[in-house]
């Protein structure tokens, strides 16, 4: 059972990612170590305007990335981004009036200079406006040499300069008194610097999160461009995808030299029953619908050639993930528990996307199909956007039905290795209430035990 959650970290904890969302996040080409933390803080967005603004930003970035004149600028920006470290903790200390060490001051200076460099690079692009940090930089750069190095410079205090000069060249007979005096002056200067810098703590923090955002934005835009994702249009009632695909599966098939067949699908605020042969792509479809919805609402482009999407408040997924037994529950018990969670949500005002794979498959078909029928009826009455896959017959509920097309143009060359090239994964509207009967044939193609097949065929004849 997967719940959508407040931010990506929470999502990570609640799912084992069998739908490929984290696969894509791991493939993001983030340059700074800062951005990974930032990425995981991204929230599930349900606000249309906020999402549209983000999608426009990605669109803008992609078009800038596609302009050859910008290549140099972007590679310079990326180079700078890769030098940015996460100094959130240090900035927190600064804001809390803690006197910072030389190391922390170094971190701030280095960050501020890099941020300023990025600001200059971004100048003509009109993409993100970073705060002006030149005042903060000049506090830490009294000699105006703009190097990413730091110590309590002689320039901060004439007295310090004189004392240090007096110690030059002496090693063994360093006067403890002058050394203590130097330390005292340094402490005083450090305190003074922190007081002066504190005014800019807020700007520095803004710069830090904007830089993390910039890194993420670039990575998202590059991924969208390279993986041929599209900008989702946000609609009020219906969701509709053209050429929807699952990037993880597509990568896997491509690595095996196979082709991936994308599918078109549209749906609204009602339940849809999905039937089809084994291996017909039902489960992949559910996973891809979940993936696209998550991507969209975490502010990413989606894996389709066109997408019009309605926003939901919650995505609820019920799929066998092999974890139930670890919790001491039978598959059926876990499933029923999940149904309770889903049904408790449908009576709230929340907009849901519910995805259930082979409901009640672990029990007898007679009662199993009754459970499926009953659930579909409840969803129909409550206008819940839901997909349920099944192999059961006699699903009479008055819901919409889609079937994966299944086996086509078979010839004798078909075998377990190439069977996928004989399957049409597209979806067709179904009028029959009976499920397709191809299990034994597919088992035969997959090379199941001959005697088993023979006997099963005989049983079917009876």
């Amino acid at each position, binding site marked *: 059972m997967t719940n959508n959650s407040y931010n990506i970290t929470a999502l990570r904890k609640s799912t084992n990612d069998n739908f490929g969302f984290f696969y894509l996040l791991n493939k993001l080409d983030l340059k700074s170590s800062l951005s990974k933390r930032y990425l995981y803080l991204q929230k599930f967005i349900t606000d249309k305007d906020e999402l549209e603004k983000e999608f426009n930003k990605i669109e803008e970035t992609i078009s800038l990335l596609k302009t050859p004149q910008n290549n140099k600028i972007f590679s310079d920006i990326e180079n700078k981004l890769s030098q940015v470290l996460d100094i959130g903790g240090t900035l927190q200390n600064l804001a809390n009036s803690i006197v910072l060490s030389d*190391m922390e001051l170094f971190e701030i200076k280095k960050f501020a200079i890099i941020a300023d460099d990025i600001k200059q690079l971004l100048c003509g692009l009109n993409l993100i406006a970073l705060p002006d940090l030149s005042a903060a930089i000049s506090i830490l750069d009294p000699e105006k040499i703009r190097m990413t190095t730091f110590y309590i410079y002689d320039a901060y205090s004439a007295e310090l300069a004189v004392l*240090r000069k007096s110690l030059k060249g*002496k090693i063994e007979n360093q006067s403890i008194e002058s050394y203590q005096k130097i330390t005292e002056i340094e402490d005083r200067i450090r305190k003074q610097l922190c007081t002066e810098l504190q005014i800019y703590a807020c700007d520095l923090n803004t710069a830090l999160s904007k830089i993390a955002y910039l890194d993420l934005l670039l990575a998202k835009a590059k991924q969208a461009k390279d993986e041929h994702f599209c900008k989702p249009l946000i609609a009020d009632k219906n969701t509709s995808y053209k050429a929807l695909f699952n990037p993880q599966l597509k990568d896997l098939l491509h690595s095996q030299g196979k082709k991936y067949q994308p599918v078109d699908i549209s749906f609204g605020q009602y339940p849809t029953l999905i039937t089809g042969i084994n291996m017909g792509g039902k489960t992949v479809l559910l996973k891809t619908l979940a993936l696209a919805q998550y991507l969209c609402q975490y502010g990413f482009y989606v894996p389709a050639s066109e997408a019009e999407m309605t926003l939901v408040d919650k995505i609820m997924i019920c799929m066998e993930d092999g974890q139930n037994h670890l919790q001491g529950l039978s598959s059926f018990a876990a499933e029923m528990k999940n149904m309770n969670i889903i049904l408790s949500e449908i009576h709230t005002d929340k907009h849901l996307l519910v995805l259930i794979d082979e409901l009640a498959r672990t029990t007898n078909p007679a009662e199993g199909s009754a459970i499926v029928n009953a659930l579909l009826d409840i969803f129909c009455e409550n206008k819940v956007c839901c997909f349920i896959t099944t192999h059961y017959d006699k699903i009479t509920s008055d819901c919409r039905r889609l079937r994966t097309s299944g086996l086509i143009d078979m010839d004798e060359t078909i075998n377990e290795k190439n069977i996928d090239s004989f399957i049409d994964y597209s979806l067709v509207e179904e009028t029959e209430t009976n499920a397709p009967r191809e299990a034994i044939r597919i088992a035969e193609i997959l090379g199941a035990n001959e005697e088993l097949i023979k006997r099963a065929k005989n049983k079917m004849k009876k």
Partner: protein
Amino acid sequence: MPFISEILKYGSLAIVGTEKNTGKTECLNYILSKLHSTDISVAVTSIGIDGESIDQVTGTAKPDITIFEDMIFVTSEKHYHTKGLTAEILDISAERTSLGRLVTARAKTAGKVLLSGPANTALLQKIIGQNAALGVDITIVDGALSRMSPASPSVAQAMILATGAAFSANIRQLVQKTKFVCKLVSLNHADKHAQTLLANIDNGLYCIDENGELHDLNIESAFMLTSTETEKTKYPCNCKTLFVAGVVSNKLLDFIRMQGNIDGFTLIAKDFTKIFITPEMYNLFLRKGGCIKVLHKTKLIAITVNPVSPQGYVLDSKILQYALGQNLDFPVYDLRQLQN
């Protein structure tokens, strides 16, 4: 000034000791004080924190290193804070050691620091590379305990070996033991053909047959070979040249010798820092006709001696130096005497 001019030929130098308290730090301090008066840009660091943890156990203080103006040093966050000099921070590493991140800094005044650098050779290599990019002419690495690893040619281009009473309080024994270390350091290069074949192999065991062809034995390490029955069957009984990318141990020599006729057998190790064998086992191996060669050879510049042991034994420095000098083909110095 002995061996300083020799040091300047290299971009990196490791100071390693045959034992703790054999005078590595004294040697480093000596070199730094001599380099100070030249216009060479110097960086110093140390390998690891082992020395530190042991020191905390035995309660003996880890000696300070004296750094001079404009020298660069790399030490952990923890020890950076306790430095007794003014320094400009040049970089802070993204990697963490158990004492925190590594700070690279340039001394603005002379003073003392505690060095605790990267704990592994990979990070050490990286730091040495970064120092070179900062314009450093030579990075000097202070070894830890009796670890030879920083002296690997993959890390440092040259080494100085510190030995002394702490290694053995008996001059004859000390000479013999030191001689053995030097013997390993001086192992000959494998032939050109083997060097080309083996240049880019980082792990596993390989056999080179009579026709000069390379065979991967598909054995993970010498340890796996000697400790796992199923791996032993993979070892070809007619093998005449064996390359071990990892550690060469007594057990491995024992195993090879027991497989029968090793007359003309060549064992190739990556470099001397990978070899952990006793003189007895080595001699037995040689007597039966085997030999050990290395892919990469280390340049040993000099041997320094510390005649004082931490338990209080004091050996006669003159006799010790003479005895070592007679037995070794490397220059031997007692730095304390030199300084006096």
